[in-house]
């Protein structure tokens, strides 16, 4: 018997408790995670494809911080901000990325396919467009349940041109679903620059075609994202239907671990705000001490180190278990 989401979901710190300190902390954990992941890839402790989000922390962290327990998230091939933002146990998350048995999916999914039912993330997906489609289904279930839960749907600028975008936005608008679509516009769909994949580069303008609000926000300002998404979430919770929020940001690493480069202007990143630096500067302006910030950084590093240690200690999964969940009922599986 399938459990309902409400039954499965453990609590997240809810929005009002999240201040810039906490947002900064999460971004720092995420940054550290991605830095360490790059090392694990280099050491071949992680072997599959890997999509980091260095430079994009504010969008993902600001957005998930607008949710409360019982809400849902859908995510993409670049899902680490959601993993951190939703509070997934990072030891298990690293273990999953390293293909170990203690990973949330026993090593089957890898870094793009980490479901964690306890934390409101059931299916990120490596197929461009899926996060949009699944959000429609979550939204339908939430609307029917009538308990004010919402779905945060994360997607990218490249995905805006997929068929799925049109199908999803139309259905979400039509059925007035409690879905907030966050477009993480990092200026590239893989190697293809925004203006080479979309004529109308102001992506929030796509919303009007569906009769829903569209907004753009500085995606490197975690408070701005948090505020914009919180407002959109409140509206959706209130039964007023979907909103599209475009967060402008910058990917400060290769598209993936196999990026050969050569398609970007080397100076492109000059002058781009680093979301962590911006948040740290603001915290300092508001009175935080250098030591307080350093302590956050240190704790983030400790948290990640512990997670990596957990993952490294985790055994490999057993091949006999492979027949669970796909094939036990299928006589054809063992051949």
């Amino acid at each position, binding site marked *: 018997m*399938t*459990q*309902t*989401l409400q039954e499965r979901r453990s609590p997240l710190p809810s929005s009002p408790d999240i201040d810039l300190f906490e947002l900064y902390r999460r971004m720092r954990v995420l940054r550290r995670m991605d830095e360490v992941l790059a090392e694990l890839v280099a050491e071949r402790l992680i072997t599959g494809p890997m999509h980091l989000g260095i430079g994009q922390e504010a969008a993902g962290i600001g957005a998930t911080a607008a949710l409360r327990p019982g809400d*849902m998230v*859908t995510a993409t091939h670049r899902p680490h901000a959601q993993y951190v933002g939703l509070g997934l146990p990072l030891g298990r998350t690293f273990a999953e990325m390293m293909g170990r048995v203690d990973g*949330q*999916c*026993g090593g*089957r*999914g890898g870094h793009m*396919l980490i*479901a*964690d*039912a306890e934390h409101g993330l*059931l*299916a990120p*997906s490596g*197929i461009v*467009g*899926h996060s*949009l*489609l*699944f*959000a*429609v*289904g*979550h*939204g*339908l*279930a*939430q*609307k*029917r349940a009538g308990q004010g839960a919402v*779905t945060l749907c994360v997607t990218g600028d490249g995905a805006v041109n997929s*068929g*799925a975008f*049109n*199908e*999803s936005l*139309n*259905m979400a608008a*039509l*059925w007035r679903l409690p879905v907030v679509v966050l477009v993480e516009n990092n200026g590239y769909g893989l190697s293809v620059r925004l203006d080479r994949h979309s004529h109308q580069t102001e992506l929030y303008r796509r919303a009007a075609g569906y009769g829903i609000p569209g907004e753009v926000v500085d995606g490197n300002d975690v408070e701005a994202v948090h505020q914009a998404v919180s407002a959109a979430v409140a509206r959706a919770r209130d039964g007023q239907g979907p909103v599209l929020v475009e967060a402008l940001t910058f990917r400060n690493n290769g598209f993936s671990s196999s990026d050969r480069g050569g398609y970007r202007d080397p100076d492109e990143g000059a002058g781009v705000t680093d979301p962590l630096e911006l948040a740290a500067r603001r915290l300092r302006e508001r009175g935080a001490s250098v030591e307080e910030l350093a302590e956050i950084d240190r704790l983030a590093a400790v948290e990640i180190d512990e997670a990596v240690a957990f993952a490294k200690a985790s055994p490999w999964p057993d091949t006999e278990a492979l027949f*669970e*969940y*796909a*094939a036990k*009922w*299928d*006589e*054809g*599986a063992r051949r």
Partner: protein
Amino acid sequence: MTGTTTTRMTYSQALNDALRREMAADDRVVVLGEDVAHYGGIFSVTRGLLDEFGADRVLDTPISENGIVGGAIGMAMSGLRPVVEIMYTDFLCLALDTIANGVAAFPFAFNGQVSMPIVVRTQGGAGINAGPQHSKSLEAWTAHLPGLHTVMPSSPADAKGLLTAALRSDEPVVLVEHKLLYRSEGEVPEGDHLVPLGTAEVVRPGRDATVLALSRMVPEALTAAEQLARQGLEVEVVDVRSLRPLDTATLAASARRTGRVVVAAESWVRYGPSAEIAAAVTELAFDDLRAPVVRLGSLGVPYPASPALEPSVLPNAAAIEHAVEQLVKRTA
């Protein structure tokens, strides 16, 4: 099935009956698809459901096939049991992404954290002069995917029984209906009626040859068998019914008994379901086969619209009869 009261109804009505009963029993079952609500489905399968269960259980969707299945994935993950109608198998091509990269893969990929109690009903086959874009049989495609059931009812009773089993299954099922069968009539058990997924059925026993038939080819095979009986040939007809899991035990047992096998499926032969059926049966019954398994299907061309052309690309009772005769002659 003995002892059960039955009612005579059409294949469409039997499907409708299964949906109505399961929707009444379990309010997580939600029907969605193009034209399924206000219109009741272009083949009337979902007729009356909107009135009975309301607009949040029966949804007319926009023309967004991948979106419909993708939506169903999200619904399933959130605890619902969606039943999707994809109007023609030809349009299922638009939803194979979410089926192959989502529905079939996720229970495995997420190590059981999500289940996919999704039923995708679709409809295929030729015979109404609908041309190359509305006549295909592509069940071999979904049957190739681990993690997914693919079943094809050939009678009203099986339509009800397989759909009921699909609706109660926690694993995803693609149920392929045939456009020429919707109006066919038969006795259908009242009340609860399940046909277990993964089971073939011997629908006519015989000793001289076996016809392994799928969907609309089952009644054609029965017609052929009757004709052949007049010549003294007793043909066993097996309704394969479930492409995945494939009931190789039942199929091979029949092949061993008769030593002569014809596979009759409407789909194209090359890389079609009959290739797997022939290969699987040969693996298990090789020593008893007197000749290689014969495969019958549509000619290897797109389906032409003209009523003068379409019948000549399709297999039928006469072709089955002829194939069995030839096979018996060759192996006498």
